[in-house]
């Protein structure tokens, strides 16, 4: 059974996020002075083929830990999961 997942990988809170910083400091010049705390992370969408949703989810979590993120500096979050009609 195939499921489509959305995973978000983001820098741990407290860690410097140069990208977020750059966006934040660019906005005022463009007229937006009301934006703050910008953080930029990765958004990964993928399809996992497994017997059950739990199985797929378990595998995805391991993938996220081992490949999609480096736990030393990043957290990951599985956002959504939906079955892919065969």
């Amino acid at each position, binding site marked *: 059974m195939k499921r489509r997942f959305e995973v978000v990988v983001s820098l741990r809170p*407290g860690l*410097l996020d*140069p990208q977020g910083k750059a966006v934040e400091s660019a906005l005022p010049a463009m007229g937006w002075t009301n934006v703050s705390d910008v953080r930029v992370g990765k958004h990964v969408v993928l399809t996992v083929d497994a017997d059950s949703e739990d199985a797929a989810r378990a595998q995805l979590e391991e993938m996220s830990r081992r490949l999609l993120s480096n736990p*030393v500096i990043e957290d990951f979050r599985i956002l959504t999961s939906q079955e892919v009609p065969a």
Partner: protein
Amino acid sequence: MTAVAEPLHRALGLTDDEYDRIVGTLGREPNRNELAMYGVMWSEHCSYKSSRIHLRTLPTEGSAVLVGPGQDAGVVDVGEGLAVAFKMESHSHPSAIEPYQGAATGIGGIVRDIISMGARPIALLDPLYFGPLTEHRNRWLLEGVVAGIGGYGNCIGVPTVGGEVRFAEPHSLNPTINVMCVGIAPRERLVTSTSRQVHEGSIMVLFGASTGRDGIGGVSVLASRTLEEGSDESRPSVQIGDPFAGKLLIEASLELAERDLLEGLQDLGGAGLTCATSESAARAGMGAEIDLDAVPLRQGDLEVFEILTSESQERMLAIVEPSKVDAVLDVCAKWGLATAVLGRMVAGDGLRITMGGTVVAEVPARSLADEGPVYDRALAPPDGLAALHEDDPTFATVTADPREAFLTVLGSPNVVSMRTVWEQYDSLVQGGTVLGPGGDAALVRIEGTVKALALSTDAKGRFGLLDPYLGAAHAVAEAARNVAMTGATPLAITNCLNFGNPERPEVMWQFAESIRGMADACRALDTPVTGGNVSFYNESGASAIWPTPTIGMLGLLEDHRLAIRTAFSAGRSVYLLGETFPELGGSEFAEIVLCTISGRPPELDLVRERALHRLIADAARAVLLVSAHDCSDGGLAVALAESAIAGGTGFAISLPGDVPWYVTLFSESASRAVVSVAPENAAKLEVLASEHGIPFARIGETGGPRMVFDALFEVDLAEADDVYEGTIPRLLAG
């Protein structure tokens, strides 16, 4: 957590004696902020407490040396009113857990060492040592480290022009990541403790990134004592680099130096504010008053000790005469950098730190910066060294097929082309790269002159394991030889000394022997030590790295148009300069064909070595040479093959009948080079060689699509090229 049980100072890495010493200095118990400051400043990393007495024995004087060890970088005079600052550093421990950011912040740190001398960074080099690429984790480490070095170096516009990559099992758990930066400045613009006078009342201006909870590392135990469980989650010891901020910091710092607005300039590296403020004060023989309320914070809830020890990247500390403060702030604003007037220099030697109007720490600046503990640790040679020496591969019975052996050695990851690595680096930016990666040494033109700097980094892990004295001496000799092969004259070195745990007598013995070897070689080659860095504790569980003193050599070529390359061209006569002895101990051939790392490293005649360098320099000046390439890993066979591959032309050589083929081809005897000359210049070269007392042999001719090793075997250039260029890509593909 057991840490909670033991006394605070121990949790901070201070011994009971060191703690008593602090109490003695202060005449009272330190408060926790002060304890945190001593904890970081008296750490091995900042205080050099185990290495100091040995480092003192290194030769540091030289006619060209303007600034020796002790400041952010060494500085050498290259004439025409110009000075070159250079320094090497390790970032191995951070890279082992987060290769990209670990290596990237390593580049940021070494670059700031150079700009704090008022010099513009013009070149980077990156000697790297990993475990075998057959393991997935080692591939991940190499990919991440290389991407991180490129990610930072490419983004700040400093060309990465050289380095090296070697592989050995002990680096699987302890990747060794060294980075070297070279910068240039007009002599009068240098910002050194001797070239600039700091005055009482001078202002300390902090500029660059804001301060966050970065690299608090060990000191965070202080936090875990005051905050609930798991709170240290938010106290990561890994720093994130911001190369864009780093680039702005370079431009702002150099503009400050150019406009002569500085009395002093310090980068914030290890131990952050604590180190920068105490060193600035101690160097000026003064005290300082610091107001932490002024420090721009990234997050609001930092504790005092965190602000004091944070290793947030991309920050600098300027010492400025009061009348020039506004001008300094303007320059920083122009480059979009945050600034903070931190405090001022005062008479006496007290470092007085206040926050919210109350004194949070008050200690003698010198006691942090200069008066840390110094240890004369026990030395003892490791067991089994004698046995290793006994089992000398030189006398092994060799059954290998010569052609197979050649392709195996040429295809060794320690020998093959690292193009896959160095193509990920911008080696061209700034427009001065005469010779980039891929030859013996890099050559970087000095803008506005015809001179060029020659740069090479080298370490000899296998030799060091078998004999740390010879290992270090060979590293110096090979680095100098690489530089000399371009026609340049070796001037001075920097180094990064990578070792295991100094509290183990075997490691300390390896360290002491390496220092001895480096010192002797530097004296003999007249290349004084201008600075460096010591990285201990490259050890996990049972596995310590081999003694790995990495040498960064700086040389000068009077006219870059005289540069010699390694590439053959067709129709030339090939000479082997120097003598080949049966010396296979610790050789590439022994490791990869005979599968043993044993015996003794080759002997090293430093007088002969220097004569070879002078011969090449004279031959270059006389425009005699078409190519020159030193013999190192893989011996004569690899030197010939690399010159042939580089030039896209083959060769035919004859082999002496009375010496075993594997000695002639793979012995790693020192002080040798393969050069090629136009036939009409052969006689001149021979005369010059004799004048310098360098033995020579005309061994063959260049040309054709094949490498012909007498009647022994032949290899098509294309086949050799595939082995040489294709191995690393294939290994990385997994």
